[in-house]
């Protein structure tokens, strides 16, 4: 029996997800946040309990993946409209926090807001670190080919600190699934932010909000938000997606992890030099 033909699942962008990391199980972290809303996270194998001054305490199942040996991305939902994601950097005792909310835009309940906050991990007996993760610009000009599954790969260009640009080959499932809708857009630029975690480890956050704004119910995915740790030393990225999709049977919530393997790629100058039509 050729197992390569028989066993693989077709999980699209989630195919190569890193196995769930349980290394934080049994641990509690106090996070001193620069926005003043200090937080406590307590992990079991199954759940993360969050208490903080900026909301009611709650406990929820979590996902956890690692960007390197000591940097964890954990994510969980208060409900299907509110996601909390933390990058816990044990080496430097720093934290970056991303909160995403759906249903807050009165014109389109699929549109999402997302905010990023910085802080430090408060260990008893130690002074708080004064350094912080920071918004990153030093990788502008990076182009990379991301392989998400045997049939799905995309090519990214990071050209501006608050946008990213995507393309793909004419063959493959990205072309099959997205060409029809993508060709209605004036460009593939999407709002994004980048955070430097450490050398060669960058947090990449984006939402498909331009897609949603222009195409809304003409498309399958509805303003999904991705938070990915990109390891440019090892050339992979890991993270989570959060949002909704619209299969024929009705709206479905999306929350899960993914990983992609990276390759260097050269992209055409006409793609890289094209104007971003969404900015002045």
């Amino acid at each position, binding site marked *: 029996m050729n197992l390569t033909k028989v066993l693989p*699942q077709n999980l699209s962008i989630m195919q*190569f997800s890193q196995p769930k990391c349980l290394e934080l199980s049994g641990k509690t972290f106090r996070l001193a946040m620069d926005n003043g809303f200090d937080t406590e996270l307590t992990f079991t194998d199954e759940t993360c309990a969050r208490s903080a001054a900026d909301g009611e305490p709650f406990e929820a199942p979590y996902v956890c993946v690692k960007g390197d*040996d000591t940097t964890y991305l954990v994510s969980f939902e208060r409900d299907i409209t509110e996601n909390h994601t933390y990058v816990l950097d044990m080496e430097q005792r720093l934290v970056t926090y991303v909160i995403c909310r759906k249903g807050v835009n009165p014109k389109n309940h699929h549109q999402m807001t997302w905010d990023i906050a910085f802080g430090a991990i408060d260990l008893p007996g130690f002074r708080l670190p004064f350094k912080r993760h920071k918004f990153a610009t030093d990788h502008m*000009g990076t182009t990379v080919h991301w*392989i998400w*599954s*045997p049939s799905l790969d995309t090519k990214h260009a990071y050209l501006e600190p608050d946008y990213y640009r995507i393309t793909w080959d004419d063959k493959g499932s990205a072309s099959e699934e997205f060409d029809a809708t993508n060709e209605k857009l004036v460009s593939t630029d999407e709002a994004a932010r980048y955070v430097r975690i450490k050398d060669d480890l960058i947090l990449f956050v984006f939402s498909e909000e331009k897609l949603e704004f222009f195409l809304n119910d003409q498309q399958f995915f509805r303003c999904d938000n991705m938070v990915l740790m990109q390891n440019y030393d090892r*050339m992979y990225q890991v993270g989570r997606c959060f949002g909704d999709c619209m299969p024929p049977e009705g709206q479905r919530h999306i929350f899960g992890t993914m990983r992609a393997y990276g390759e*260097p790629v050269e992209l055409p100058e006409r793609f890289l030099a094209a104007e971003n039509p969404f900015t002045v």
Partner: protein
Amino acid sequence: MNKTNNGSRYGMTQYCSPRDLEFSGKTLTLSGEGGPVTLTFHDEKFLTCAAGGEELYSSYEALKAADGAHLIFFGTKDLKVAVIDDVNASAALSLGEPGSYMFLKIEGADAAGAETPGFTDEMTDTHIRWIPAFEKYLELRFTAPDACEITFSPRKDRPRAAQAACIRIREGLYLTEVNRTSPMWSDMPQGYSRIVLLQDYKRLLFAGGIYSPVLNDLKLLSGYGADPEPEN
């Protein structure tokens, strides 16, 4: 600044996942034929393996290949291998000759399943390319329950027949050990002849290690799989 790289710094180990530190501070007691064996993980770097009245204190390296599936390497003068399956509370352990394994259960562990790992013929006829780095691969064609043909990139012209230990850990998850040197000018570092791969055929992912008996040195690998014979 374009931050991408082609893996020249790490070679075959480029895509290697972060280390699996889940066992730090834990003790596993394994029972069954050949047991008992106790693995005491003192911290994130060192363990003690107690088996047959002897204790071995050594460093260890671990990778997670799938949910609840851990591949652990340790040893001082040669390589020992352990696969721990949390789903079935089971273990495959190689403490002796390369390719020889014993199959044990973890005492006192809650498990959703009851499968015990064992040698299998299910891999026969499987053909897979494992990609641990940009443009580098190991291609395996399993020709019998205990044999395969292995190709080391980029030497497509030099496939090599080899003995292979093929072990089913659980559905979709298989351990393979191949003992074979690579030809000159291949991407595999020369002399790393003990190749141990824990393979998830549902997600097409693997974690593994390559070991040089001469240097007593281990390199960790992981990456993704591709079908060398795609239908389209």
